[in-house]
C-alpha cells in the first residue's frame, strides 16, 4: 500500500517532506557468527508501553522498556501520529511488535536467544538527530545484556 504513487497527493507530499539528509557515513557492523549464536533485541517506534507506564509526549525521544517475558496483551500504544492503521495492533501485537515470531525462531534454534529487555520509542515529531542521546544510552544497555543484533520495526 505504501507505494507513494498509490497515495493521495497530500499524503505523498507529506511523506516526501520527511526525507532527511544522512546523519553521516553509513556505519557498518559485520558479525561473523550465525544468527543461531546471536542474541537479538526488538525495538519498535510504535509508542508501545505498559498501561502503568508514563505515556509518550507529543514529541518524545525517550524510550520505554518491554521485558522479554512480557505477555503481549499488556501493551498499549500512545503514539502522537494518527496517520496509520491501529486496527492491526488491536488484533495482534505481532503485526507491530513481533515478539511471538521471535520466540518461535529462538525455540527452533534459528535465533540464538532473545534480549532480556526490548524497547519502544515513539517515532514522530522530531528530527532524526534528536534521538541520538537516548539511543546511545540504550546501546550501552543492550551491549551489557550481551545483545549483538537488533531488529527494528516502524509503525
Amino acid at each position, binding site marked *: 500500500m505504501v507505494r507513494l504513487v498509490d497515495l493521495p497527493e497530500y499524503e505523498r507530499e507529506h*511523506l516526501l517532506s520527511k526525507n532527511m539528509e544522512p546523519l553521516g557515513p553509513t556505519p557498518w557492523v559485520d558479525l561473523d557468527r550465525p544468527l543461531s549464536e546471536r542474541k537479538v533485541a526488538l525495538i519498535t517506534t510504535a509508542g508501545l508501553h505498559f*498501561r*502503568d507506564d508514563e505515556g509518550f*509526549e507529543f514529541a518524545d525521544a525517550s524510550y520505554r522498556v518491554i521485558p522479554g517475558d512480557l505477555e503481549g496483551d499488556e501493551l498499549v500504544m500512545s503514539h502522537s501520529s494518527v496517520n496509520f492503521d491501529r486496527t492491526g495492533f488491536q488484533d495482534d501485537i505481532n*503485526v507491530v511488535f513481533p515478539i511471538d*515470531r521471535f520466540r*518461535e525462531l529462538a525455540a527452533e534454534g534459528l535465533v540464538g536467544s532473545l534480549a532480556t529487555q526490548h524497547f519502544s520509542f515513539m517515532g514522530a515529531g522530531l528530527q532524526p538527530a534528536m534521538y541520538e542521546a537516548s*539511543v546511545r544510552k540504550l546501546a550501552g544497555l543492550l551491549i551489557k545484556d550481551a545483545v549483538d543484533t537488533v531488529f*527494528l520495526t516502524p509503525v
Partner: protein
Amino acid sequence: MSAIAYFLESEGLQTTGISLVRENTEALRPPRFLWTTFPLGRPMGTPGDAPFQRRVILAALDLLNRKSGPVLEDYPEDAPTVEIEDYPACPVSFARPSADVSTWDARLRNELLQMKPWYDLSRHRRGRTTVGVAKAPIDELAPRLAKLVDQGSLEGLDFKPLKYALEDLKAYYREALTAQPGTYDFAEIERTLWDETELGRAMRALDDLFAADPRLAQARRIIASRAARND
C-alpha cells in the same frame, strides 16, 4: 527508525528491520532495511498470519549476511487485501436515542452507552483491549473532549490529558466497530468512525478549534489523520 539504526550500528550493534516508506529510508541511508509495501501501522503485514509474518522477518534477518551496504531491499510480497464484500457489517446502530442530545457531552455519553456492549464483546473475543493510555474510565474521558466543543473554545485546554483521552476514545470505538470476527478494511472503519459517530463529529469540531489557532496547527495531528481531514 533509520536514525535509531544509525546510532545503534555506530555503537557496534548490527541492525536490520522493516521500512514502510522507501523514499524516507533511502534518503537517510541506514545500514540495512527491508522495504515492504504494507500499510502504515502494519510493519509485519497482516495480523494473525504467523507464516506471513515469519517470512517477512526471515527476509529482513537475511540482510545480516550482506558484506557491504547500505542495503535497502524490496520485499516481493504484498499484504493480503480485503475484498469489500468480505468484511463484517458495522454492528452498531447509530439511531439517535430519545435521551438528551442537546450538548456534545450528552450525545457522547449516549453514544458510549451504545458502544459499550460491542466494546465488551470485542474485549471478550480478543481477550484484550488496547484502551488504557489515559488511566481513567472511558466515561470520564469523553467529557474532556465535550467540554471544549460545547464551549466552542480551547479555554482551559489541558493538552496531555486530552491527547490520551482521544487515543483511548478512538481505540474504544475501533474495537467496538470491529467486535465481530472477520477481516476489516481500515479505510471503512475510519469512514464509519469519522462520518457516522458523534465522536467523529465532535473530534472534527475540536479539530476546527485547533485549526483556528496557528500555535496549535502542528498539534492537530493528535486529533484527525490527514485522510480524515482530507487536506
